[in-house]
């Protein structure tokens, strides 16, 4: 059964326990950074900071958001990767095989959540959250979930997580991840609309279906382009003949 995590942002205190636990479990080095006027550090997800606690100051108060790969049900990154370095597992995680990566960064460009990052400093491969697939395989929850002191993050079967999210939505909570990009494995709850928290506005269709639609227009363009060139050449031939007659 595929797993999912419910992220209830109403409970988050911004302690960054998830961020630190992720670094520690995955043996990613700490970032050299500096204060840049916000509680959020480093400024963005990187090849080493797979899980980042983002800070947002709004009219309704300030909010923290733990942010990493959403592990889409139909991931754009998997679909666009030219070397099949990325794959979606039945349990939910989207994983990658470093030895296959050529560093094209198409996955980064195609990700609606702007997640995969290229590690230029160390191994020169794409890196991102793995949903702690190694821990899931041992029957234990991801490091960030384990470290969360307020139960902002809870792991469960995806069906159960979706049911909980829908129940909370009926009580007035805002939900993100049920339909975005065709559905994801990390589903967020919030007391304010997600666009006020700065969440990406993502289409409610999965990338592969969009890609297929474009493939249809691609084939149409080949036919129309070829035909247009042929018609233009016919016109030129006529023009040539008229010129010869004169």
């Amino acid at each position: 059964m595929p797993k999912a995590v419910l992220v209830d942002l109403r409970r988050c205190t911004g302690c960054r326990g998830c961020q630190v636990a992720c670094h520690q479990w995955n043996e990613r080095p700490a970032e050299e950074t500096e204060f840049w006027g916000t509680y959020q550090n480093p400024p963005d997800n990187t090849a080493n900071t797979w899980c980042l606690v983002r800070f947002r100051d709004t009219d309704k108060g300030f909010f923290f958001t733990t942010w990493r790969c959403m592990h889409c049900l139909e991931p754009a990154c998997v679909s666009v990767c030219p070397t099949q370095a990325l794959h979606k597992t039945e349990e939910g995680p989207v994983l990658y095989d470093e030895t296959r990566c050529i560093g094209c960064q198409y996955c980064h460009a195609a990700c609606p959540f702007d997640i995969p990052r290229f590690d230029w400093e160390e191994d020169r491969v794409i890196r991102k959250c793995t949903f702690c697939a190694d821990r899931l395989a041992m029957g234990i929850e991801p490091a960030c979930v384990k470290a969360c002191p307020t139960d902002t993050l809870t792991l469960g079967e995806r069906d159960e997580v979706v049911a909980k999210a829908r129940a909370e939505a009926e009580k007035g909570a805002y939900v993100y991840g049920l339909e975005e990009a065709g559905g994801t494995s990390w589903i967020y709850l919030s007391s304010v609309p997600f666009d006020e928290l700065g969440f990406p506005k993502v289409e409610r269709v999965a990338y592969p279906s969009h890609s297929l639609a474009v493939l249809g227009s691609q084939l149409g363009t080949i036919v129309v382009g070829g035909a247009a060139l042929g018609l233009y050449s016919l016109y030129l031939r006529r023009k040539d003949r008229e010129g010869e007659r004169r």
Partner: protein
Amino acid sequence: MRTSKGLFGGEFYLLLWIVGLLGGILLGVIGAFMLLTREETAPIPWGLLVPSYVFFALAATGSSLVNSIFSVFRIESFRPIIKRGIWLSLVLIVPAWIFIIIDLGRPFSMYNLYLLFHPTSRLGWMGWLYMAFALYLVMELVVVIREERMTERAGIVTGVLVLIATLAVHTNLGALFGAINAKPLWSSHFLASHFIVSAMMVGAVFHILAMIVTNLLKRGSVPGELTQLFSKYYAPMVIGLIILNWILVAGEYIPALFNPEEAPYAKLLLAGPYSVSFWLIEIVAGGIIPLVILFSRTTKNKVPWLLTASILVVLGVYFSKYDLLIGGQSIQSFAGGFISYFPGGGEILLLIGATAVCLLLYTLGELLLPLEPEEKPAWFVFVKRGASISN
């Protein structure tokens, strides 16, 4: 035999040109080294090298589309440009390859593109399509150069193969970006059509540039037959393509202004940090001025004006791809802030170096291959006798 009056009639200037190009290539090698050993992360995944790759890929395939007017549809007026046109398509694709290979984070693993082919990835297809495109172009060049020993059918068959590969490369290139719905400005069914139009536009003006500059340097003048071909056939074609391009640009950006997801990107181009480049270079310099030059009876027959219009169209198309591809990545996914990007030194040096490689290959073609309409191959299948640029 030295009958030429052009600058390259004397070997000194030709040698100077080649030394200059080798200097440019050296800069490119330095740039490539800087990029291959870089450790810093760029603010956007695809920087200067990607629009540069797209530009040269469009120029090569666009030139190939113009070639097909003779090679497939047998319009005799285009016969004088065919050999040089095919060679031009071949050399224009080389910088595109250089950019894309050096831009990879792990270029030495590139063989995985072929070994681990992924059919749902447009980038996966690109590797194979470019290979087919280049292979068919070489076949077409051999057939055209050895025309006397080949049947017309052989010419048409290779021409059709090249045309199919060209259209496939084009539409795949458009879909490579158009299928990414994470980037609202790129995500469009029309991007492939837009790419074909701008490709043919830049391919046509590269023909004008190459033919005129080559003749000026070799002979000191441009044959009347060529000037007539450009004013009678190329000028109306480029005018039509400029107008069609505007229609497609308007069709993409105007509705984008009313779409909440696309509006911030469209505003970057139309009224934001990329607006100077969009309005002044893409629309005015790359569109309106060439349109006036190529439309006017007094200017469209004059070589300096044809050159001016062609250079402006090249600039316009280059910046249109830069604006679209860099601007399209310039808004943060989370929280929507503007991402400022300026090309790095390594990227700029590689742009110079790869362009120099293209010019050097073109020059070598002029030296070694019988690209003039009346020239015939002498030895080694298609090489002309006596390596000299003058004739």
